[in-house]
């Protein structure tokens, strides 16, 4: 047990260090950063903001991790977010109950994933292009639903999902925490994780070993669609309206970035949901940090790029090898539990 925990800690160490460094940096430019207080029955402070604002990217990153593990990529998640937000808003304003609305919306997201999965697994179209189709068309579909306007709603239940709180925590945070843990458990406590990794590393060999590659591929994209649907609901609930034009715009890139910062290879194979979640939180910390810093917005992109490059360089194989080499020297002959990848 301790060995497993240790291997987890080892796996997440680079991400944790990066996160700590960024938080520290932010607290230099903004001293009140770590302050937390309870207001209106919920925790209030910049740290909470990071977790709360990070919700969409975290959720997208969870699905994206699994898709990337299969050696795929899903560019459509931003557009699917927009579609699902629009569907949720129009369903609730047309008088459906909250439960029904959620059902329809999540179903829509899964359907979008099914479409992507079908293109990738059955028609054998390259993932970037397959999902590009929905990325382009999806936003149009979302706008079709809202007719280009921001579709506002007043259903307290739906709004609660975006800006409510429970046990002092904003609901989005609870949702992604619960969902992340659920997915991680499903993936790791069943054989799903290993089979997905096998497909990502060598699809042909996996198929020949009897793995149901098409089904698992489709399932991965469906999960990604589901994640995008939840993210879409949260994003819409947060502003009490579905903004088909802007919801999730360019968020797919952030999600992919989060997965990569989390150390999952874009070439498929080994993945870690926890690490991707950390990656997403790192990205959100950078964003929030930039906002708190008070620099003029012209510098936003440069700062973001610089920090990301720095993190990635630290995580690059040569840099890591240098680090593990030092660690190995110290551990001398003791056989290592698990090869650091």
């Amino acid at each position, binding site marked *: 047990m301790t060995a497993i925990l240790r291997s987890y800690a080892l796996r997440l160490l680079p991400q944790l260090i990066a996160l700590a460094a960024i938080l520290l940096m932010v607290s230099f430019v903004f001293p009140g950063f770590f302050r937390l207080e309870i207001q209106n029955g919920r925790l209030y402070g910049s740290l909470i903001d990071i977790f709360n604002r990070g919700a969409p990217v975290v959720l997208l990153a969870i699905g994206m991790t699994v898709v990337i593990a299969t050696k795929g990529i899903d560019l459509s998640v931003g557009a699917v977010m927009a579609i699902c937000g629009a569907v949720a808003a129009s369903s609730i304003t047309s008088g459906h109950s909250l439960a029904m609305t959620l059902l329809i919306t999540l179903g829509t997201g899964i359907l979008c994933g099914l479409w992507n999965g079908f293109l990738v697994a059955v*028609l054998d179209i390259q993932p970037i292009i397959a999902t*590009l*189709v929905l990325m382009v*068309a999806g936003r149009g579909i979302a706008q079709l639903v809202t007719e280009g306007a921001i579709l506002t709603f007043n259903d307290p239940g739906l709004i609660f999902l975006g800006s409510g709180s429970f046990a002092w925590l904003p609901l989005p945070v609870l949702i992604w925490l619960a969902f992340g843990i659920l997915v991680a458990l499903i993936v790791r406590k069943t054989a799903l994780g290993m089979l997905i990794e096998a497909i990502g590393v060598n699809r042909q060999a996996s198929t020949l070993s009897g793995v149901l590659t098409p089904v698992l591929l489709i399932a991965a994209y469906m999960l990604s669609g589901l994640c995008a649907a939840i993210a879409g609901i949260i994003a819409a609930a947060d502003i009490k309206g579905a903004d088909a034009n802007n919801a999730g715009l360019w968020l797919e890139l952030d999600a992919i970035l989060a997965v990569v910062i989390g150390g999952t290879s874009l070439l498929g194979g080994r993945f870690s949901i926890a690490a991707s979640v950390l990656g997403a939180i790192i990205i959100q910390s950078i964003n929030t940090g930039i906002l708190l810093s008070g620099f003029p917005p012209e*510098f936003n992109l440069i700062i973001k790029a610089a920090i990301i490059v720095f993190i990635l*360089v630290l995580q690059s194989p040569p*840099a890591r090898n240098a680090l593990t080499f030092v660690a190995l020297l110290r551990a001398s002959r003791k056989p290592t539990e698990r090869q650091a990848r």
Partner: protein
Amino acid sequence: MKPKYLPLTATIVIFVLSYALCVAQYPNILSTRVIGNLLTDNAFLGIAAVGMTFVILSGGIDLSIGSVIAFTGVFLAVVLENAAIHPLVAFAVALLIATLFGAVMGAIIHYLEMPAFIVTLAGMFLARGMAFVLSIDSIAIKHPFYGTLKGLYYKLPGGGRITLIGGLMLLVFGIGILIAHRTRFGTDVYALGGGTATAKLMGVPVGRTTIMIYALSGLLAGLSGIVFSLYTSAGYSLAAVGVELDAITAVVIGGTLLTGGSGFVAGTFIGILIQGLIQTYITFDGSLSSWWTKILIGLLLFAFILMQKGIVYVSRSERRHA
């Protein structure tokens, strides 16, 4: 026919067919004016897509080109506004910067063993960020030399024009085809796409080639930026957002595999024309709402990929039966 030419042929067949369909509906599309526009309007995209083709052939990807185009444009505008140098000198400097930028990304990709997707994504943020820092305003370029360059065109019968930039794109495609198929560097690019580890064992100088590929992509993105600044006579930091996706799409529609190692520069040209045709068709139609435009672009993209798959599939199985 050799199987490797199949996707290319499929693309050409599809393009010709769809062009014929469009003409049947809107005869005006056959005019030299539309054909000239197709070249001029897509010149910057085409030039950048040539670079992208090399990158994708090598198994990589370059997300930074749109930002580099914007940066180049802003750089030219700022320099020409504030310094009394000839645009040609500014062009040279801009190309140098863009090439270096690409080379550095290539070096990071190779030496730090990082995925191209992420390195160039950071490059995309950085280049756009630098453009913002140079100027957030859109700056008009009023140098008379620009006017001279824009006055250079070959008039086709029927009112169409082959402009300087349209011609430049054709030239770049020609050179690109030559480099891809008639130089050792070109074969090395394909070799990298076949597998870096193997290429390395076969003695391909992987590091040098990688750096050169991204430098070439940077150079062409820079050239594309110059063309874009000629096209609009301005530099603007928000210009060319998402051009990388258009370029990737053109490359893939052109029959190049994103996994690398297989495809043609010439295919990319057809890919560009197909995209241009979709756009032209949509404006000629002119009845679509904003959202239906997006949906239709997506669907047409899908249809093209599907047709290509279909043609390749059918002719493969026919060959086997023969």
